[in-house]
Structures are given as C-alpha cells and as structure tokens.
C-alpha cells in the first residue's frame, strides 16, 4: 500500500511538471494571462518574485497564501490586444494576471511579506521548520 501510494505520488508529480512545462500562459475565456514566476529557497525563507508588467500599483494586486500554496491575481491598467492570436486566429485582449503556485516548502502565511516595485512582486514567506535541540553526550 505504502509503495503504491509513493508511485502514484511520483506519477502525479511528473504529470504536474509536464503540465507546467506545456500549458499555455493564457486563458482565453477569463481574458487572463499567467505571469512568469521565480521561486528560490533560503535556509529560513521561500522567496517568490512574480513579473507583473502593465500593473500600475499594489492596490491592483490580490495575494492569498496558505501553508502550501500561493494565489496571485492582478489587474492590468490597460487591455493588451493581439491580432489573429495563435490557435484561435481571432483578435483577443487580456486585462489580468492569475497564477496559483504550489510552494516547495511549508510556510507560515501569517508572517508573509510582500513588496511591489517596477512591475515585480516579491513575496517573502518564512519556512515552517521544527528545530530540536540535540543534547551531545
């Protein structure tokens, strides 16, 4: 049972990674683009940056964090249009960003900190790590 669960977890992870690799960075029905994201981990923190061009101020961004995930939504200050867009071959406009991320480590959402500067959102999330003092004999 343990073994089969581990294999299924691994399969889920592989498909999740493939989905992340090949999923288009846009959603036509919601007129929504997926922003580029970078995640790094230090000893104490998970640090995320999100590229949000065309977003004017922090008031246009909403951020929801749980222990294991983060959702960012942002409204652009104008609609960006493409003519004859890719696979749908029609004029299309996008006016928002949305991304849900699975975090690489458990974090403490109550202590999250965020800054928005030059169109880049930086979110710092303290890692939840239990430390035990080991007595040396």
């Amino acid at each position: 049972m343990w073994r089969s669960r581990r294999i299924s977890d691994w399969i889920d992870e592989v498909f999740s990674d493939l989905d992340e690799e090949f999923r288009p960075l846009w959603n036509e029905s919601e007129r929504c683009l997926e922003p580029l994201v970078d995640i790094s981990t230090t000893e104490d923190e998970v640090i995320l940056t999100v590229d949000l061009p065309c977003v004017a101020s922090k008031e246009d961004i909403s951020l929801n964090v749980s222990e294991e995930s983060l959702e960012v939504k942002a409204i652009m200050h104008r609609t960006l249009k493409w003519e004859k867009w890719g696979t749908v071959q029609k004029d299309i406009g996008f006016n928002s960003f949305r991304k849900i991320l699975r975090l690489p480590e458990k974090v403490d959402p109550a202590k999250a900190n965020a800054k928005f500067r030059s169109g880049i959102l930086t979110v710092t999330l303290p890692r939840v790590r239990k430390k035990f003092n080991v007595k040396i004999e």
Partner: protein
Amino acid sequence: MAEIVEIIEDEEHRFRSPVAIEGLPDIGLVGTIAASHIVEQFNLKEIAHLESEEFPPIMVLHKGVLRDPVRIYGNENLLVLTSEIPLPIATIQPAARVLSKWFQEKGVRLEISLSGIPVQDRVNIQTPKVYSVANSSESRDLLKKSGVEVMEEGFVAGIYALILKELTKIRLPAVALLSQAFLKYPDPGASASVIQSLNKVAGISIDVKTLLEKGDEIRVKARDLMKQAQGTISDMQKPVEQTIPIMYR
C-alpha cells in the same frame, strides 16, 4: 566536415564592411529585444536564415508568410542576427563557427553581441549598467574610447562567448555588450541600456524612447519566449558568469 548548422541566403547581397550584431535569446531576452528594435528602427529586410536538423521542428507565421525562426536581417552596412526560438545547446558551437566564417566572407569589420548579465537586485536598479568583453587589443581599445566599462576578470558563457572565441581565431574584432538584467524576466530596460552602449561603440544612433515606452507591452508579449529560453540558459552554464575564476593566469 559539414556543420550541422547552415546559413541560407535567399539571394546574393553586397555589403560595405558591415557591422554584425547578434541578439539571440538569452538572459532577460536582452539581445533579442534589442535586435528586434534595431531591425524595426532601420527597417531592415530579411537576407538569410539559419537551418539545422537539430533545431526544433518549428516555423513562424507572420502576416500569413511562413518564416524560419532564426533569421539574419540587414542592409549594406549592418547585419542583425535574431531568433524567435532559443537555440538548442547542441547547435551553439556549430552556429558560432558557421556565423564567424560567414561574417568573414561578408567582410564584417566588427561583430557586436548584445546580451545580459543577471543581477539579483535588478528590481532596485533604475538604469542598468553595461559591461563589455573584447576579443582583441584592437576591440578593447574601441570599447575604452567609447567609455564602456571593460570586464577584466570573470567567466562568459553562451553563444556570444563562442562567437568571440571563433572570431579571435580569424582575427576579426568582436565585442560583447552585457547589460545588468533580470535572469528570468524579459528586460526591455536592459535592452535600452545595451543599445545606448551600442550607439557609442558602433557610431550609430538608435533611439530607445519607443522601446522604453513599449517596455511593459514587450514584457508581456515576450513571456513565452522567455519561458522557453530558461532551459537553454541553464544548459549554457550561464550561472557560472556569477562565479569568480581561480587566480591562475
């Protein structure tokens, strides 16, 4: 031995000792964004493209016309290499060799690669600084006269490093202009900085006002290419540029 990368010219063109500019997808797409802006500003026409069985099976449609993704634009005095796909790692070395030979055949007097170097606090930098690398004392003197800071120590990685190497072998002056840039996000601000340095080095005048005005739109529209390029950036050992070489000389 035949190379796995070929340059295909649609017709014969004449050149007058042109300057060749390379702007392939790399750190912050600095070179690609800059090259596209230069092509647009000078209204350059496509004169050749690169082909390889190692390139992904992709063609690009623009206004209904099928185009190869790796293209060379130009006129008598200027050649600009750019691409709409990241070059696979297996084609980097042969592409550098083939391009260097082709530049020599076309009488190129100076090759200039445009790229970026990643900086962690890019978000706090208003105007990115540009550093440069030269392949000879002649091109180093040119950079110093132009007032662009020359890198004296460090690693350089990617196709521009190999083009510099190949052009050194045939004694063709070459430089790389490298702007501070975001590693993983399209960076039109860095492209503008690199063009301003290019203006000084090549003695040309390219306005960056429209590039900066359209910066946000470019950042949105370049996201897909940036995402594709991230794998290549890692394959090209780009993080090594942020390390310090051992002091043996």
